[in-house]
């Protein structure tokens, strides 16, 4: 079976991202998964075990200071060379900012079609995308070149399929024309060990109804009890209650967790755009007419400052 290239995403702290495990699981349906690590020296060695555990037969290790030191272009260049050499059946990336950017450049380099934000990919290359705030389902296909697809996190359940991955070192030579954007500084802001918003299986979000930045501690407390990530509506972000990278919605992150809890969020169409495909939705809002209740599997009409502390106490009791 032909190789399927999976571009690996990892964090320094937590290693291989869950979405990469989803990609490997998906790749096994399409061919033989090969993981591609694009990173600094020594990056692949730390990730190899986990990648093998999820079925990577081969790991292409493209490691160089320059890959880390310059934005996106070197990664796309290395990947394009690899695709030309290996002639894979498909190239799969995460639908993260960087995943999409690498894929976009690859599409131009190879004059190849590209499909982003895909939630399902069939063996014949037919991709499913949910668009327009979760209201329309699209089936699409790349018609020029190979399936080049970025997968929306939480689309596939990662399943282990242990393999012993052989590591192949890929020679990296970055042309000056790919070294135009230098990374001067990387600053980590993740304050806690909370799961990443797009990958979390539980997300607890707060809206304008939370009232203040201090009050978000309540949202965080519930999220932590459930092992979840914290999200926020745009109104909450605009009011300075919570940082922008946690915004859920049309102009923020799209999340599809098992459980989404909306606290003090009205449920505007642009907010729904980012959470509509969650498996189970729970809402607490004092306005019984709030549109969020139209899509909530369970809703509590009430003051979140009464309901949430009681819920927290109840969960503690049961633990």
């Amino acid at each position, binding site marked *: 079976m032909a190789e399927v290239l999976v571009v690996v995403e990892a964090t320094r702290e937590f290693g291989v991202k869950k979405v990469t495990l989803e990609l490997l699981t998906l790749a096994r349906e399409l061919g033989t998964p090969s993981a591609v690590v694009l990173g600094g020296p020594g990056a692949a060695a730390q990730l190899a075990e986990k990648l093998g555990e999820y079925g990577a037969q081969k790991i292409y290790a493209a490691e160089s200071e320059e890959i880390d030191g310059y934005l996106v272009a070197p990664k796309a260049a290395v990947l394009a060379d690899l695709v030309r050499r290996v002639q894979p059946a498909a190239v799969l990336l995460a639908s993260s900012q960087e995943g999409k950017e690498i894929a976009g450049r690859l599409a131009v380099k190879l004059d190849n079609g590209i499909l982003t934000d895909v939630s399902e990919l069939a063996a014949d290359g037919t991709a499913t995308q949910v668009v*327009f705030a979760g209201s329309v389902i699209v089936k699409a296909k790349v018609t020029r070149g190979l399936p080049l697809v970025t997968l929306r996190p939480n689309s596939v359940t990662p399943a282990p399929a242990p393999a012993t991955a052989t590591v192949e070192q890929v020679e990296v030579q970055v042309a000056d024309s790919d070294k*135009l954007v230098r990374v001067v*500084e990387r*600053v980590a802001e993740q304050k806690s060990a909370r799961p990443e918003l797009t990958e979390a299986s539980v997300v607890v979000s707060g809206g304008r109804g939370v009232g203040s930045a201090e009050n978000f501690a309540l949202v965080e407390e519930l999220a932590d009890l459930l092992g979840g990530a914290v999200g926020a509506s745009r109104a909450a972000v605009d009011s300075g209650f919570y940082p922008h990278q946690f915004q859920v919605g*049309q102009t923020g992150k799209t999340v599809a967790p098992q459980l989404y809890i909306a606290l003090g969020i009205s449920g505007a169409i642009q907010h729904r755009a980012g959470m509509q495909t969650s498996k189970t*939705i729970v809402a607490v809002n004092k306005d019984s007419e709030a549109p969020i209740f139209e899509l909530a599997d369970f*809703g*509590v009409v009430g003051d979140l400052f009464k309901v949430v502390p009681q819920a927290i106490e109840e969960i503690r009791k049961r633990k």
Partner: protein
Amino acid sequence: MNIVVLVKQVPDSGAERNLRTDDNTVDRASADNVINEMDEYAIEEALQIKERLGGEVTILTMGPQRATESIRKALSMGPDKAVHVLDDALHGTCAVATSKVLAAALRTLDPDLVLCGAESTDGRGQIMPHMLAERLGIAALTGARKLTIDGDQLTVERQTEEGYEVVTAAKPAVVSVWDTINEPRYPSFKNIMAAKKKPVQTLTLADLGIAADEVGFAGATSVVLEHSKRPARSAGRKVTDEGSGGQQLVEFLAAEKFV
């Protein structure tokens, strides 16, 4: 500084949007069409740079005839002129071919700086800036929440999943922006009137040296096979808190095996 701002007309994300039943393209005819929201932030950034450093701000749009409404609206914020790539053969163009057309138009404008939105609310690709940079052989600094310019050097602070990065490049470059970068101005009455007289140049594919079969359905690198309405979620149980709302909530979570 010669600045070009990419502006895309999109169906209003606050209203119902759909694809056309005949050819699976975005239904623009029956939609309320607006400037892609992020692009307004790109326009604002361009105007602020012009106010500091001088130069000219040009709007560039590829889109159907009705996109002129959005172009006039963009001009009413203050840019100097606009270029509209308009050609019937463009209907059905994929993202890859769109980048080819926009890159060709940009070559004719020879900008120092290209500003655009970080993503469009209809396509949500986040891919255009890098595709353009790839074609033009220039730098792409994407997802900016802050842009500083020092001579030829551009420095961008960009949000990442884990925090933020500071990246830097020399002009010319493409910079895409998020809505955290500034607060777009409202068009003044004076500028609304002035916008009506500002030059809007129309470019066809022939003007750009692109053949009709490189774009549209003929040149598309991907195809939408079909689309369907996703069944709306139905409301579940709703309880009113009369002292035990929190407990009821946890009972639901427990029944669903979340606690």
